[in-house]
């Protein structure tokens, strides 16, 4: 399977461990990723809080590039990117005038026909049966709390993916590779996201709830599919513990780490050795 690949800023920067994990895991499953040539930022939170047209034009240019490069499907591993790409595509599909205007702005004919996939959808596309068959070391000791965060499933009208309040798709994937996901309460709560720069305490409080609830429901690790969530839950985990006068020791894996480990890939190959929380220190 060949997929267009839109890494977004995080995967080429602070979260390059996520990209390493993706390339290792998907490569082992026979998926090739063709990075969109000359891609630009999706606009993230900044663009749509400042300028509506900019927030559509930035992702629209990436959609146009994918189309020009003959890629019908584009994998965007960051949920913020995939949501912005989807939103821009939908806005233009429902408004011809806007589409023409944006096409002029980005100097490319925005077709809007490129479909956008998140990481879970990529695994679904590969097929759970195929995943099961490829497992070499089932993760039978792992009891992950699958954490979707805000944007994988929201806004439901835009992403149109799984149940916005009680999603189950990630559980199905980690279950297929032998782990025993726990049912817990905070799978779609916010981790604090970009507030990590502006108002760290808010993030520590919100992330603390997520970590605490996962532990309370018997999880021994967290699974995420978002670079930002990983930063807040992994890198900030020690600080969160100190802030709440407690101690967490909960490894935070990308969904591709889980699948990769089950496929027999090592921690160094997947970039897990670069995570902050190693686990098992308590």
């Amino acid at each position: 399977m060949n997929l267009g690949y839109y890494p977004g800023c995080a995967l080429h920067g602070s979260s390059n461990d996520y990209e390493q994990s993706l390339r290792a895991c998907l490569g082992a499953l026979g998926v090739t990723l063709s990075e969109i040539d000359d891609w630009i930022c999706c606009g993230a939170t900044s663009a749509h809080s400042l300028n509506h047209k900019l927030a559509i034009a930035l992702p629209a240019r990436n959609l146009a590039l994918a189309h020009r490069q003959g890629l019908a499907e584009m994998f965007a591993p960051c949920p913020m990117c995939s949501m912005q790409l989807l939103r821009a595509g939908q806005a233009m599909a429902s408004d011809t005038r806007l589409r023409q205007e944006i096409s002029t702005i980005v100097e490319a004919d925005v077709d809007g026909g490129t479909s956008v996939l998140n990481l879970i959808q990529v695994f679904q596309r590969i097929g759970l049966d195929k995943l099961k068959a490829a497992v070499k070391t089932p993760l039978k000791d792992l009891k992950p709390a699958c954490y979707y965060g805000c944007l994988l499933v929201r806004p439901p009208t835009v992403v149109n993916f799984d149940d916005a309040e009680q999603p189950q798709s990630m559980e199905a994937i980690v279950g297929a590779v032998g782990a025993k996901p726990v049912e817990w309460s905070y799978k779609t709560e916010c981790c604090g996201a970009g507030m990590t720069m502006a108002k760290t305490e808010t993030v520590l409080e919100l992330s603390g709830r997520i970590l605490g609830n996962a532990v309370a429901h018997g999880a021994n690790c967290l699974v995420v599919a978002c670079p930002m969530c990983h930063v807040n839950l992994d890198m900030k985990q020690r600080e969160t513990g100190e802030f709440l006068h407690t101690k967490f020791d909960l490894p935070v894996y990308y969904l591709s780490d889980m699948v990769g480990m089950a496929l027999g890939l090592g921690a160094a190959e997947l970039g897990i050795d670069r995570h902050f929380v190693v686990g098992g220190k308590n």
Partner: protein
Amino acid sequence: MSRIGVFVCWCGENIARTVDVEKVVNSVAELPGVRCAQHYKYMCSDPGQAMIREKIAAEKLDGVVVASCSPHMHLKTFRRTVAAAGLNPYLLEMANIREHCSWVHHDRDQATAKAIDLIRLAVAKTRYDRKLDPIRVPVTRRALVIGGGVAGIQAALDIADSGYEVVLVEREPSIGGKMAGLSETFPTLDCSQCILTPRMVEAGQHPRIRLYTYSEVESVDGFIGNFKVGIRQKARYVDMSKCTGCGECSKVCPLKRNLSEFDYGMGMRPAIYMPFPQAVPARPVIDKKVCAKIIRNGCGLCEKKCAPGAIDFKDTDKMVEEQVGAIVVATGYKLYSIGREQPSGKLHGYGEYGYGKYKDVIDSLQFERLVSASGPTNGELKRPSDGKIPQKVVFISCVGSRDNAKGMPYCSKICCMYTAKHTMLYKHKVHSGEAHVFYMDIRAGGKGYDEFVRRAIEQDGAKYYRGRVSKVTEENGKLIVRGADTLAGIPVTIEADLVVLAAAMRPADGVAELAQKLNVGYDEHGFLLESHPKLRPVETNAAGVFVCGACQAPKDIPEAVAQASAAASKVAVTFAASELTREPEIAHINEQTCAACFACVRTCPYHAVEKAEIRARNGTLIKYTARVNPGLCMGCGTCVAVCPSKSADIEGFSEEEIYSMVEALA
């Protein structure tokens, strides 16, 4: 040549301000067929009507045109006027020069010209008007009431007490409906069962009410005064005539752990059960989906224990037919189904509240059962998960109501009141408890209603937060409710023991199918349509079919009862005459030219056109033809439009009349 009189009304200033009535009269007096033309300040007044009557007599008029307001306003008035002067009332036409002319135009010259045109059309039509007589149909003086909740019971009793027989059909094993399961009712806190069960018994024992419980209306044929109704009596597996209602069968039944429908899953019942002790009829029913004898020929203990031998495992559904003259629909409501599983893709539910995931998140009807003296906990409020008495309860209103994104756009009307009642009932049972309510607005219009809500807040200490709840989660056995207090501008987190969701009211299941059988309209949410929201609130567009209760719109008990009595009085009005008269402006088929293609039979929305045979005196078939049933035809004209041989026509709006109007305009 016709002798038509034209009477132009000023309507005070309403018409005369914009239309030069003097000029109109002078102009239309010249039209062919017009004998005389007059104007007057108020044609609908007594002197105005007297003028019309005098002219009819003096000029020997054979047609009248009144140019005034909409026929909706005064057609009946002027028909009576001309009838009083001895003219057939269907020889009167109205030209609407108010709503269609003076009210919507400014330019006096143009408005005057248009008024003249409108009258010219009416005159042209009048020349082809024929004398018509009202249609008379006989009446079966028996009524069918569908639904045995409080509205259906009230309607049935009122009709029966007026001296007419009633057939009352209820699909559950007992009548009583939702109200039978309520604890106490707002705003007086009187016990729901205490006020309802005497009415249920009365309905069950009334000599003129025939009760069909555990039954459903399967088919409806016929028309006002003459309905034929097919009723399916579902297999009960208990012979109602032999059973004494002793209840021994339920005691011996070993399969006791089935979720009770009456308790909305808050309690259990055996496989053979009466929904509740005061059920009417007090006869049990066997749940064929769980009974071991019916499924695999096992058990059979109840049959052995039953002294009168009333158990009949071989029972089957029975079809019965009833003849009635009028139908009252009182099928009631159900709650919006909260949570992940949704009946329609449109309703995305409220997964964030954890209904169906956390045992202690319940809906409002389930709460009613938990605080009801007849409920599974005998009125002691114990939460479903562990039976503990909740010390903090959060009530969330508008779950599914007034929510265009995930629920229904309408207000369910009763939730504000019953939520206030719930907080009171809770505080009366758990004095140390805290009741927290999240609301959007408090809508407490009604006699004693706002006072009731104030009492809940001020005397019983319910804490109200104006704002929504974003999420309910569970931690250490507590339900963490996160919401906003938008008046204080702060987020609120409450660690609750029980969460009660005031789910939106929706029409009961199957009401759309029933409405189609009855030819009654329904809105996009499935609520049945009344024929006029203000002036004909219980009638429907199907003659002889009336609605009451929550099947028409969300409403509380007093309103449902009032509407039921209104529907009953409309039934009594229908039955007051020995035969019914209907407007004669209906379709008729020219059977000589009908080619028997039956396009009209297939397209008629009222099923009023039938296939018929024309036979010679010796019985040989001459031809097939379509034939209009005058009792059913509503005069919509669809058959006229589809008839390829131009054999269908509408009396009073014949093609001849319509074309004459078009020609007059040309």
